[in-house]
């Protein structure tokens, strides 16, 4: 059983402008075990990117906590630590970005880009040592080390993404937030990068928060998956559990829409009516109720809370217990294999 490394608690983020206040995130809570990969899926505007940026503190959450258990076993609130403490643990939580073009400064050589975090954290490090560290990490990420003196414009998208990964890893972080890290890449390059991420995870004992809109990539890479809708986490469970036995009507609809790369698989589509509501003016009660086919009166009035319906499967739906929803049909072999491998990577979590 892995220990919990990160506890995300009631993260709320409001974007205020003069006229309106938009809640991009509402009370998002979940736990992440050490060495796990958590997939966060949802459609554009659901707040998944904002969540990732709040966790790494690229933007400040309006309220909430992110408890991080450090290497030496202390539990600190990453969002509220003192300045000196922050200096020590900042490097533990890093990020990989979506756009391999805007995430690298075009005016710096690859060596400078990868060594920048080192320079910032270890100002006394000698030049030779700096270079040795960079070469080591570049080798790990599959970059040709003879290209370190080049500028980013010399590289293709996939190679640029490797540079971004090397920069995130050079400080030996514990947790990496991958924000749509493979979405901008071509299919064959995507596979290269995903394989690399998995390899690095094993080698460097990393924990991933993998944010993506691509449900098949998330299924492949994640141990557990959280589904977001309009700034809320609506379901959070083991990957196979969630994909084969969704408990939230939105998850069901999302899964039915996934195009499967197999012409023989005929999926029964459960089309969602309507569009995602404007987050500045969300519906009452359950945010999903105007589009939900199982909506009852209660859904229009009260907002459901995320709760455990058994086996670490969290759902925010009033009718979670009674509904029988369709998921992806797994082959029996796959289910069996999943039941024995992925479940023990998941800690029991008590949710507030």
């Amino acid at each position, binding site marked *: 059983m892995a220990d919990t490394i990160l506890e995300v608690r009631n993260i709320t983020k409001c974007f205020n402008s003069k006229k309106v206040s938009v809640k991009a995130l509402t009370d998002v809570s979940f736990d992440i075990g050490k060495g796990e990969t958590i997939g966060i899926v949802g459609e554009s505007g659901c707040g998944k990117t904002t969540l990732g940026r709040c966790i790494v503190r690229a933007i400040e959450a309006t309220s909430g906590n992110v408890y991080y258990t450090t290497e030496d076993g202390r539990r600190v609130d990453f969002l509220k630590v003192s300045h000196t403490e922050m200096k020590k643990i900042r490097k533990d939580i890093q990020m990989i970005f979506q*756009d391999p073009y*805007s*995430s690298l400064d075009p005016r*710096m050589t690859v060596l400078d880009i990868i060594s920048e975090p080192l320079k910032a954290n270890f100002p006394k490090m000698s030049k030779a040592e700096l270079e040795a560290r960079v070469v080591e990490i570049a080798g790990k990420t599959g970059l040709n080390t003879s290209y370190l003196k080049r500028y980013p414009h010399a590289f293709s998208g996939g190679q640029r993404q490797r540079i971004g990964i090397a*920069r995130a890893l050079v400080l030996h972080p514990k947790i990496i937030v991958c924000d749509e890290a493979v979405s901008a890449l071509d299919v064959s390059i995507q596979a290269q990068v995903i394989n690399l991420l998995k390899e690095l995870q094993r080698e460097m004992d990393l924990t991933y928060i993998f944010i993506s809109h691509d449900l098949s990539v998330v299924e492949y890479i994640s141990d557990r998956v959280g589904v977001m809708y309009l700034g809320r986490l609506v379901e959070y469970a083991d990957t196979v559990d969630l994909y084969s036995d969704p408990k939230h009507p939105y998850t069901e609809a999302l899964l039915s829409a996934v195009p499967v790369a197999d012409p023989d698989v005929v999926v029964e589509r459960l089309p969602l009516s309507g569009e995602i509501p404007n987050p500045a003016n969300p519906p009452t009660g359950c945010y999903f109720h105007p589009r939900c086919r199982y909506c009852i009166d209660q859904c229009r009035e009260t907002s459901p809370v995320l709760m455990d319906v058994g086996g670490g499967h969290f759902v925010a739906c009033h009718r979670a217990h009674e509904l029988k929803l369709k998921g992806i049909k797994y082959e029996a072999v796959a289910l069996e294999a999943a039941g024995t491998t992925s479940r023990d990577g998941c800690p029991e979590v008590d949710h507030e």
Partner: protein
Amino acid sequence: MSEKKRKNHQNDESYFLASQWTLMRRKLMKHGLARFSMVLLGLLYCIAIFGNFVAPSDLVAYNAKTKNCPPTKIHWVHEGDFIGPFVYGLESERNMETFQLEYREDTARIYRIRWFVDGPEYKFWGLFPTTKHLFGVEDDGYLFLFGSDSMGRDLFSRVILGSQVSLTIPFVGTVISFVLGVLIGSASGYFGGVVDTVVQRIIEVLSSFPSIPLWMALSAAIPSDIPVVRMYLYITIIISLLSWTKLARIVRGKFISLRNEDFVTAAKLAGVSDLQIMLKHLVPGFMSYLIVNLTLEIPSMIIGETSMSFLGLGIRSPATSWGVLLQEAQDISSIASYPWRLIPLIAVVVTVLAFNFLGDGLRDAADPYK
């Protein structure tokens, strides 16, 4: 297409190793007009720097005998014999109908044009007194390449000596507005909030003033009896005080857009300090745009100085700038009878165009990744 064009260099290792500045320079060199302009401007500035040496005459060589003399013809051959460049002697006669001096060549006298002749004494760069000039005529011949003005002074010398003022004021002014623009613009973009609002309002107020009346007001405040150098400084400051606003706006906009780039977030997450991020990512990021804008700003400063002097508000005679020369040429008789006195106008146009072409080339080159 540009994406493909960029990739075309893929087999070129030096392209991979080239920094942004190298790429910019390469792209600029491909721009023919910009390259030509650069050479031309280089030449003009060289002439300005060595102005006293290049100009055969000085600013105070009044001569009543050579008033409004047209450009002197340079001859090579005298009565069938080749004797190198020379001028004939100058003979003047008053036309009793128009009461104007008319000039004729006196072919009996020959004055050869020579290199490094002695002329009026000056201090080279204000340091060593010397009488050597690049070229000139021997003895007491007259050489007016661009003709002479109403006080018999050589216009060519005055255009060259005037360029010392007209070409350097914009440079000094640019430096001042560059510093102001970068400081104020980045403060505005970095701090945001109240600072930003206040700075933006100030910029709006400043740039809503009509410039000519403002110049008039400001230069009216300059006492008329101060030395030329001080006057020069004041005018520079007046011009740059008004032109930093544009730059500050550009810097602020670029600052804000760069601040949201992923690579800045990445640096922040890696624990790089704010100051380091500014110095390493933000400032180099907008520097190329800034240089482009500065280059495009210079012509408007040249015109600014010229128009101030033209209005009689800037440099005053005997100190000379192109504006002063044009002001002297502004009456109708000079256009009708002495068209050569408009030659300084050509100098202004050529310089302004050259700066604009160079700016164009720089703008195309500024973003070598597109």
